[in-house]
């Protein structure tokens, strides 16, 4: 394999503690190395920024609802198509790009690892078919557990060993990566057209509460020592006043200590927190609850979060939170798709236009950024748009610009049609913090890699780690205009994935050798769970058990993380 030496760049790497000092990065045999031979190809990074490949912790990029979004929104492809290139397939789409475009665009921005945030187990094969067709980036997918009948029944009977055995079985069967919880209990309630909007609303028939579901899965996750913590989309998403529900959920993790061998320090990851940080009691009195959430978050070190920043675009919302999407379509009257999945989850899709002229949208924009700026620990705070819910992932460079430049934020704030009302309902105007390049490396590389339990291979530039390296044509100390930040992060100068150059001067030059990450957690043999699985498939599933498992050939290049949960 070829060797590279990236010379004289300004390196930002939390793993080794390099904060913008000029130094060299060596790549050999797909790994970061101490040194390379004199045959190594030299990349001159003088005056440029060098970081590890970025890690996406939460995006909806593959699977049934993403594809339904593509198919039911032909309008999303307008003016976006790129023809077939020398190394690339034709690709298009804006908020829900084709799989090829997803891979190319992530790579061009310097991302090398991406996590699909919600995989309905029954549709796992579809998710993996799409992952297989997404070039370059390593991917994993989180199966959803928060509305699963097995989980409900075991938790209700207080059978923690069975919960663990079931989690282990489902991760292996679906080739999944982590325990995802979406609107715990609420998506099952949606089977009857209902919802759980607080952590104490009982789930119809199953007689269990969201709080019990979260607590139970959190306990199981730590008992098993999985690489990632539970990854939770709280109840009551998107409603004014919901920050209290969010706090109620976060409190469930209070005092719990992490247990794992992967260097992960959190026990709960709270996702797209922007959607969960609303105050007020109606859309008229809608205001930011970011301060309350950030204060709590700063005090409690055993949790991480991602922002879910609104980018003020026309986009496509999609979530396993079925009742929320029904609520949204009744607000904006745009086309509504819904899929309830037997025994497992629900899901919905509605297009949405975040219009800067609408007060609520502008306030949402503020809240996402406020959270990023008020949270004190960038190692626990990650930039996302909950792609495509708050905006497409291709807008990350613009969010970096807003986070790194107070001027760009204040210009936006002043430009809103309802500027005064927006400023009054938020804290953003009074926040002058600017995220530094080192902090950005924490928020987009080291932090998410660590939260996923992957910090020994991804997110850093220490020798022996995977050679995922990015060079951006940007010098932190010489930025005159905030637009330069957005431009540089939109198309990296060089991107290396596992030692292969995949992007050169902003263009894709190789499709790399992408891998699928999944977790194989070994638990003691559990006859009870085996029998329960057989019975549920016999009686209630519409598919035979023998046809449920995702066979290995759908995961042609696996990277299996083994966990001994015995």
């Amino acid at each position, binding site marked *: 394999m070829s060797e590279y030496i990236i010379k004289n760049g300004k390196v930002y790497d939390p793993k080794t503690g390099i904060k913008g000092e000029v130094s060299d990065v060596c790549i050999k045999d797909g790994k970061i190395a101490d040194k390379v031979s004199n045959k190594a190809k030299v990349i001159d990074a003088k005056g440029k920024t060098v970081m590890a490949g970025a890690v996406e912790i939460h995006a909806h990029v*593959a699977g*049934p609802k*993403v*594809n*339904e979004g*593509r*198919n*039911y*929104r*032909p309008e999303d*492809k307008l003016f976006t*198509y790129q*023809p*077939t290139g020398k190394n690339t*397939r*034709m690709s*298009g*789409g804006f908020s*829900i*790009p*084709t*799989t*090829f475009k997803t891979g190319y665009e992530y790579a061009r921005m310097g991302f090398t690892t991406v996590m699909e945030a919600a995989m309905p187990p*029954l*549709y796992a*094969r*579809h998710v993996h*078919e*799409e992952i297989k*067709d997404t070039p370059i980036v390593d991917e994993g997918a989180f199966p959803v557990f928060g509305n699963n*009948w097995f989980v409900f029944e075991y938790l209700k009977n207080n059978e923690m060993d069975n919960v663990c055995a079931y989690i282990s079985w489902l991760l292996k069967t679906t080739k999944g990566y982590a325990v995802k919880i979406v609107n715990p209990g609420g998506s099952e309630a*949606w*089977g*009857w*057209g209902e919802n759980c909007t607080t952590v104490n609303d009982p789930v119809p*028939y199953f007689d269990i509460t969201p709080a019990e579901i979260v607590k139970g899965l959190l306990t199981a996750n730590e008992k098993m020592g999985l690489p990632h913590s539970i990854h939770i989309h709280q109840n009551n998403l998107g409603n004014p006043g919901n920050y209290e529900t969010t706090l109620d959920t976060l409190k469930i993790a209070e005092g719990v200590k992490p247990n794992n061998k992967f260097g992960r320090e959190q026990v709960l990851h709270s996702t797209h927190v922007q959607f969960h940080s609303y105050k007020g009691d109606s859309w008229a009195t809608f205001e930011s609850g970011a301060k309350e959430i950030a204060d709590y978050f700063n005090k409690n070190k055993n949790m991480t979060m991602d922002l879910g920043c609104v980018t003020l675009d026309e986009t496509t919302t999609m979530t396993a939170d079925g009742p929320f999407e*029904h609520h949204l*379509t009744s607000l904006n009257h*745009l*086309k*509504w*798709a*819904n*899929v*309830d*999945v*037997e*025994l497992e989850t629900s899901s919905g*899709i*509605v297009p949405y236009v975040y219009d800067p002229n609408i007060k609520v949208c502008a306030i949402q924009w503020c809240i996402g950024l406020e959270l990023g700026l008020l949270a004190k620990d960038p190692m626990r705070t990650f930039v996302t748009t909950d792609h495509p819910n708050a905006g497409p992932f291709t807008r990350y460079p613009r969010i970096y610009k807003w986070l790194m430049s107070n001027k760009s934020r204040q210009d936006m704030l002043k430009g809103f049609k309802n500027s005064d009302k927006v400023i009054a309902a938020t804290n953003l105007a009074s926040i002058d913090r600017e995220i530094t390049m080192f902090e950005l490396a924490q928020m987009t590389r080291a932090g998410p890699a660590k939260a996923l339990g992957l910090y020994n291979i991804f997110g850093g530039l220490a020798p022996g780690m995977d050679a995922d390296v990015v060079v951006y044509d940007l010098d932190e100390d010489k930025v005159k205009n905030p637009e330069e930040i957005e431009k540089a992060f939109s198309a990296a100068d060089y991107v290396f994935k596992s030692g292969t150059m995949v992007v050169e001067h902003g263009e894709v030059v190789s499709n790399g050798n992408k891998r699928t990450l999944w977790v194989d957690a070994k638990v003691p043999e559990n006859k009870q769970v085996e029998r329960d699985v057989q019975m549920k498939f016999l*009686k*209630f*599933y*519409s*598919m*035979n058990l*023998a*046809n449920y498992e995702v*066979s290995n050939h*759908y995961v042609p290049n696996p990277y299996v993380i083994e966990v001994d949960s015995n």
Partner: protein
Amino acid sequence: MSKTITDVICPFCGTLCDDLTVITDDEGKKILDVENACAIGAEKFLHSSDHAHRVTRPRKLQEDGSFKEITYEEAIEYTAQMLAKAKKPSMYGWSSTSCEAQSVGHEIAELCGALVDNTAAVCHGTTLVAVQNVGIPSCTLGEVKNRADRIVFWGCNPAHAHPRHMSRYSIFPRGYFTGKGQKQRKIIVVDPRCTDTASLADVHLQVEQGYDYELLQAIRAAVRGQQLTGDIIAGVPKEKVYEAAELLKSGRFGVIFFGMGVTQSLGKDHNIDAAIMLTKDLNDYTKFSIIAMRGHYNVTGSGQVLGWQFGFPYSVDLSRGFARYNPGETGTIEVLKRKEIDAFFVLGSDPGAHFPMQCVKEISQLPSVAIDPHITPTTAICKVHVPVAFVGVEVGGNCYRMDNVPIESRKVVEPPEGMMTDQQFLEAVLKRVKELKAN
């Protein structure tokens, strides 16, 4: 001795039953018996096993109308040359094959600037357009089994077209919240004919042919409690419309299944718009879903693969170097009628039997290749016929059920000696097309 293979997937209709048991001879060459399948599904397996009546090598149409056997290599060369030289070839079908084969076909289409279209063109394409207009509240078939107490069959006749649908998912099964099975469910059938499905209905609305849109909108109005005018609406007495609306609203979980009776009759996608909006309206009172009764076992999969690779579910035109979608303009029937294409490739479908005669005549004038295990009206008019192994019988591969649930089909017997699978054939064509395009 014989071998028994369980949990076999049936590659016939969109119901995609996955509980078949196939019994083969000891060498795994001949199928002796098929259990659990419907009559059509069982026949598909048994028929494939009858090698004596199958074409096992490609054939080329001669000037005198007869077919002459050619080698697979010659067929690959003909296909690759035809597609690579064509300015605007059409690659149609894809509904009776695996997603893996579709994926290879799409790469060829991209290189050759082809139109890619599936059998939704003559089936549920109007449904896909309606979904693009108004969305679709839906659920998996297991949800129907476990929860549904109101079932509507509109313009479809599962008793004949999807024979095991009613017993596996919709009318008879006992699920988690539906322990009494059929007794717990109310069935409404909307059909101008007294079909075998209608004979099972609690309410049969005998809609006047072509008036589905009117009846759907009348039920929507009745659901909202509005007054209907006229005694007879779309051939149905007013009282019966009110009764049906009340029945729908009073359920806990309802589902509308619909088929070609509404998608391809007068009104087309507008009918489905109205059916989806009725479903959406009903969600203000109870829980309701709507599911299209897809025909071919993997027409749904073709829409999925096209979706993630190009962003559109059918009628995709790649001839300009990027994907365009405009059903009515870029659909296969339309381009054939306009005589716009200069080569025709078909796999996993039989347009010769289902397209308008004008289109069939046009196909017969074009350089053409048909990939199909059977002799069909299409293979009879194409210049080259390439027989391949049966997907789901002689080779596995992924398929999508009518509710978009993916199920991997299985190989149960060996294909006749020396036969290619469609994926192998397409891969060989792709390799050759790449060589031709490189020069």
